[in-house]
């Protein structure tokens, strides 16, 4: 088992089982809770791939998320019930690139871990129970349709991207969900849930050797096809679908969201470095320590909802920045000026160094969150970014790199604005 010393002084253990499963174990003395998460490197954007003997297949949007709902169903009941016997809480989530199943428990973590491994490895899908789930998922999607943050985010991505499946909601659409079949669900399951495409992380007051041997003993042999998964992502043009889109929703005031599409050209360490650089870029624009935020706030163009972020994977990368605002057009104008100013004037080394201290401290404190650490370890493993080198990379980031990112990545020809306005009442 490989041992990695973390910046907090803790030791992280990592290994790969013979079946290909990657395991992370982070012992946390004194803590009472044990948290485990089992994830597959498979999310909503993986909709085109090759299946042996069948060739290239394309499946409807929403399958990864549908599977996440259905794996809890067992032939003799429901996985929720099994976890209830230890008082454990169990849950799951799906992102663009990943599906994760997790639990947190005080009692019986070994049994709970075996149960987690078992239910994820034993799909029980019938025509009847798949049909029954559709109503539940429809309500989940409808709930999001009433959510302004979710709505504007969807609008933005639909118009920023022509082809990349990141433009479609993770859950799919009400129509696509109702069209999903048992065969499609199983096809995806058998392709993406093979152990070599998965990772398991355990965080808690556990013994690493015993934990690893428990996993080794209970992780079932994979009886379906194995091997490298070939995935296909449509070629994404440089241009956007629409540079400015508007919709109405029953909300109190307008919302504005600006997105930049970046070419996903970074891999491995470069991707991690870029994530740090872009986080500095957006803190310079939208952080509470930024003069720009102060000016926009005092001129009442943004409120406390103002924020920006960079999302990236080996398959896509985009930035978003937005706020609730009475004047979306004015805010857009001001943001254009701010970005221009940052692109043309030299950056302050003091600002960058102070922001690096912030990222440094935030990283250390994040090791208190089992969920955050475990999920980071796994997502960085899947994207092949060396997370254990995070602080080194932060230290080494140069002002010029931030400047270059500002100049090259914030390209107005690859930007879209989404505006959500209140419904006019008669």
């Amino acid at each position, binding site marked *: 088992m490989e041992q990695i010393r973390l910046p907090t002084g803790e030791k992280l253990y990592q290994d790969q089982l013979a079946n290909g499963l990657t395991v992370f174990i982070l012992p946390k003395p004194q803590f009472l809770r044990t948290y485990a998460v089992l994830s597959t490197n498979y999310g909503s954007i993986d909709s085109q791939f090759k299946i042996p003997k069948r060739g290239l297949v394309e499946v409807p949007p929403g399958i990864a998320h549908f599977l996440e709902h259905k794996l809890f169903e067992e032939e003799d009941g429901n996985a929720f019930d099994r976890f209830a016997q*230890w008082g454990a809480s169990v849950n799951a989530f799906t992102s663009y690139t990943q599906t994760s199943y997790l639990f947190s428990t005080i009692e019986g973590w070994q049994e709970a871990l075996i149960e987690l491994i078992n239910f994820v490895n034993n799909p029980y899908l019938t025509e009847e129970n798949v049909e029954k789930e*559709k109503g539940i998922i429809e309500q989940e999607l409808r*709930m999001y349709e009433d959510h302004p943050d979710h709505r504007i985010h969807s609008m933005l991505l639909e118009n920023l991207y022509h082809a990349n499946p990141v433009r479609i909601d993770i859950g799919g659409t009400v129509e696509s969900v109702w069209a999903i079949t048992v065969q499609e669900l199983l096809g995806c399951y058998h392709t993406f849930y093979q152990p070599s495409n998965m990772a398991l992380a355990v965080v808690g007051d556990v013994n690493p050797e015993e934990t690893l041997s428990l996993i080794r003993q209970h992780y079932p042999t994979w009886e379906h096809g194995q091997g490298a998964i070939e995935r296909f992502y449509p070629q994404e043009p440089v241009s956007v679908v629409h540079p400015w889109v508007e919709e109405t929703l029953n909300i109190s*005031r307008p919302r504005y969201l600006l997105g930049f599409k970046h070419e996903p050209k970074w891999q491995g360490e470069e991707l991690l470095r870029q994530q740090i650089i872009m986080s500095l870029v957006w803190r310079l624009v939208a952080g509470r*320590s930024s003069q720009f935020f102060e000016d926009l706030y005092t001129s009442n163009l943004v*409120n406390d909802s103002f924020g920006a972020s960079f999302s990236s994977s080996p398959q896509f990368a985009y930035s978003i920045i937005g706020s609730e605002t009475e004047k979306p057009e004015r805010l857009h104008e001001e943001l254009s000026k701010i970005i221009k100013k940052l692109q043309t004037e030299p950056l302050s080394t003091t600002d960058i160094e102070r922001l690096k201290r*912030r990222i440094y401290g935030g990283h*250390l404190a994040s090791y208190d969150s089992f969920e955050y650490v475990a999920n980071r370890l796994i997502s960085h493993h899947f994207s092949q970014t060396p997370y254990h080198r995070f602080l080194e990379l932060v230290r080494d980031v140069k002002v010029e790199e931030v400047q270059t990112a500002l100049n090259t990545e914030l390209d107005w020809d690859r930007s879209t604005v989404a505006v959500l306005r209140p419904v006019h009442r008669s």
Partner: protein
Amino acid sequence: MNFVQCNLGAGVRLHMCETDKFKSLTCKMFIQQDLQTQTATSTALIPFLVRRGSQEFPSTLQIARELEYLYAADFSSDILKIGERQILEFYFQMVDATLLPQGEQQLERGLRTFWDIATNPAGSSQAFVEDYFIQEKHSLKQELEGLMNEKRAYALNRATALMCAQEPFGIYKYGDLDTLGKLENSQVFEHFQSLWAHYPLDIFLVGTNLDVVANLFGQLVEKRAEIQKLKLPKRIQVVEPRFVEETTEMQQTILILGYRTNCSYLDEDYYPLLVGNGILGGFPHSKLFMNVREKASLAYYVGSSIEGSKGLLTINAGINGENQERTLQIIQEQLRAIQQGDISGDELEQTKRGLISAMTSMNDYPGGIIDRNLMGIIHGEMRSIDQVIEAIRQVHKEDVVRAMEKVVLDTTYVLRAPRQEGDSHGTN
């Protein structure tokens, strides 16, 4: 993970939990007062105002830069409502001193900054900076108007406001727009000063080096002369259940059922009530989740919760509008089943385990260990995590039935899209 308590003069308590378990130091300060229309909105403005600037750091920008310099120290302030108390909260967290270069200096600098932001707002000796006051009145106005943006939170608040219209509990934690419009800078400033001078203050600390920290707070906190006496909620009898339906443009229909539990924190049946709520709708194995979601596929979310100070049980669900009557019926059947003793051994045991597990888990979150004490502070009876776990262990089926029999429906609230022509109309 227990707290050692010491008094810093009348009405000021310091609660300390010395531990090296976490990578950070966490500090929270709470000032409580009775929830009242006259003062609720003034109090609600304070979190907005303090983050704008202090005497030492007179703008949001300067505060943010100082916090960044302190390696991602975190400050926030908010309003909590527990029962009929409005609680002003100040929160501060920074990386544990042992992990930072010149850790002890950073720690003292951090805590002095925290104290300055929380107690010494930018402005004169009689008022906040006028520009800040005007801007933050506007921010609070947006917050109050923006309640309708999150339909589920809006529905829950609306149901509470209707159900408790004649009681302090009906007041929203951030106050109301009418009062806000009339507020003057000097008046809010006076209220801010009065909160710091005359109302109970509890300071909680979790982390290492707490002797140093306690010493510092000892110097910073001013002695108070007298402390305001506060009230506990009165119990109201339900005369007749009410049904209110409101419409707005939306996709889902949201159902809220508000019940009076006739039982709260100090009552003997409090823990049986918590177990009863867990069986009803607190977990994925609960009756509501199993019957409304898993069996009937009517909802994605459905659950119930307890407000243990006021004594309310609230059920909420998001459904398709055409299933309104059917869902209401299934929901009410679940409560009735519990009241009639239809509780399996597994349901009881799993629920108790779930509650005990959640309670024990709090030991792993600095914020969680702190917040759970608020009920004890308000009711003048602190209970340790171990005491609560023991009380839950002792709950039997007949206790649950007895507690849940006292639960009475007060208000059913439906928030939905206007009905299209041809839809059948709901009945009371």
